[in-house]
């Protein structure tokens, strides 16, 4: 009895002393600011700042090699906190979210061929430039879904990628992986977007897709400040898009859309009001 108590106690004591010595001897000096910054970073290790993880970014801020406003997922709040820790002025930028600029799912857009093989947009793009006739449209095989660290993208039953404005943090990972650059960054405050990515002429767009932009200029006529048309494709001018929504009703192919009134059909994401992120507002 006594022997076992002594043995166990002895092992415990020895281990404790050894650990204590090791902790002292091999201690690594860490700047307390680095730990504080790590604390306020989202911890998703998404890589949006350009470094592989939050730890590296925290270190880089303290070392002064990177600015404190490079964490889109953290948003303005995080930037402010980091600026406070570092004792500098916050240089916050307007929060941005990604939008899939295409509504041409497997029903609305015609297929060039029936694709068989790897469920990956980049792989499908290598076979005769992708299975959809429209060269700019969403392929819908979900490469962006796999790239998104925040689970903010889903593929609808009809094969179209849709991004949640609530969950998107603006890390731009999906933009890097999309072989057709269908995904664009837009200000969170803007809810009206042209959901088309085709630079083909109107006649061709009509042939390929029911909901493509045919560059008819109507949106530009009703809201000249809010739209530009380049390469046969309308785009919202987000800096002066106060009355962009007036064109929604006028657009003959319904390719202008207001996210305030909900996501494209087939998406399970719930509608959100203009410019708000519900869980942030709460």
């Amino acid at each position, binding site marked *: 009895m006594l022997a076992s108590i002594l043995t166990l106690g002895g092992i415990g004591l020895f281990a404790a002393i050894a650990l204590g010595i090791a902790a002292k001897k091999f201690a690594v000096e860490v700047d307390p600011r680095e730990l504080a910054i790590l604390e306020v970073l989202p911890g998703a290790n998404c890589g949006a700042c350009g470094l592989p993880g939050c730890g590296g970014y925290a270190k880089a801020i303290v070392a002064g090699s990177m600015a404190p406003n490079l964490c889109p997922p953290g948003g303005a709040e995080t930037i402010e906190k980091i600026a406070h820790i570092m004792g500098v002025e916050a240089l916050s930028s307007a929060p941005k979210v990604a939008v899939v600029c295409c509504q041409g799912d497997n029903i609305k857009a015609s297929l060039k061929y029936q694709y068989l093989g*790897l469920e990956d947009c980049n792989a499908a793009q*290598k076979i005769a430039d992708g299975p959809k006739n429209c060269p700019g449209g969403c392929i819908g095989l979900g490469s962006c879904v796999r790239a998104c660290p925040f689970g903010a993208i889903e593929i609808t039953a009809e094969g179209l990628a849709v991004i949640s404005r609530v969950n998107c943090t603006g890390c731009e990972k999906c933009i890097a992986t999309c072989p057709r650059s269908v995904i664009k960054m837009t200000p969170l405050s803007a809810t009206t977007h042209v959901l088309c990515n085709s630079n083909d002429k109107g006649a061709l767009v009509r042939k390929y897709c029911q909901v493509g932009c045919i560059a008819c200029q109507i949106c530009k006529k009703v809201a000249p400040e809010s739209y530009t048309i380049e390469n046969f494709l309308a785009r919202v001018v987000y800096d002066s898009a106060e009355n962009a929504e007036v064109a929604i009703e006028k657009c003959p192919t319904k390719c202008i859309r207001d996210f305030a009134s909900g996501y494209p059909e087939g998406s399970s994401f719930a509608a959100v009001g203009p410019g708000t992120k519900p869980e942030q507002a709460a």
Partner: protein
Amino acid sequence: MNPKTMDLKTFKGGLHPPDGKEFSADKAIEICPLPEELIIPLAQHIGAPAVACVEVGAKVKKGSLIANARGFVSAPIHASTSGEVIAIEPRPHPMGKALPAIVIRPDGADSWDESLKSANPGDLTAEELKACIQAAGIVGMGGATFPTHVKLSPPADKQIDTLILNGVECEPYLTADHRMMLENTEQILDGIDILRKVLGIERAVIGIEANKPDAIETLRKEAALRNIEVQALEVKYPQGAEKQLIDAITGRQVPSGTLPMEVGVVVQNVGTAAAISAAVRLGRPLVERVVTITGPGIKDPKNLLVRIGTPLQFLVDQCGGLNGEPAKIIMGGPMMGQTQLSLEPPAIRGTSGLLIFRKEDLPRYEAGPCIRCGRCIGACPIHLQPTTIAAYARLDLFDEAAEYHALDCIECGCCTYICPATLPLVQSIRYAKAAIMAKKRTL
């Protein structure tokens, strides 16, 4: 001699897909008639596309130069019949998109360009012969379409000692090379003599799979007189892949990431040898080739001598038309061929076959999880671990994929063919290879 009892050489790995050659193996080569227009793409070979040197409206003769090679790794292109150039514009290309092509409306005379001169190979030097081959636009006829003159120009420090002629034709369904060996024996052997002279070597070996005993016998009779060896090879896919063929015949392995010349070998397709003979002796550039039009979706499969640029639809029409609704149109064989969007694209220099499957001929693909059965590893002729590379590729871990030698993959398709989970392994590996190469370029 019965090929079954011969000493059959081979490589390690590979598999035995059903060969499907019964459709067309006994069909003698027929000459395909002239279509209404010939679509001759400028990109038909590995390397830089050719540059058109004729204008719309120009009258051309069969064999007239219509596009110049751009750079050393490129090949010139010639008119495949006499007629008028009616357009130079993007047209459907076997690559699956519209690419620049010279469109010729035949005049029906099909007369050769008089300026083409025939020559006796004995009178020409090695350099002159090589120039002749280069000017004739000869490229590898096995399907890879690598410009032949480049292969025949090894750097001075590489000692070549063996020329291997690839008559294996291991791709299922294809019989074009088989028929060539039976019907154009003399031309092939003459081409081999020219190749030996260009390379300045004696040893030449023709490798043929044992499932073509008639070709082995025919060639053996003639080849012995010219001191050319004929080697029967075990029937196994991909016996005709360059590296596997070299291993089987010489026992040498081409080091990873290098060319066959590294082990002193040059490999040429038997069809290429015949084209070389025609280029030198008759002065005729590469304007036609034998194409096997076959598969369950074709009424009357045939081996046709086809002018480059003949639309696929026209070839199908020559073979009794389609048998049922086509579901997959494949240019090349079923293991490595490329699927087509339609029958509009033309046959080009690398078109060894046109294979049509109906819906009921397609395998069922419902990709499931890898069950680690290891069959892909056993079948891989390069001894890679396809499933591991594919798994890394799916996770975008390209450095790890490279470490498992993704770049050594020859995309023969064995792993995908054998995979019980029907995973698209080759496609994943191809994806990884592209990403690794892109990464290398940016470094």
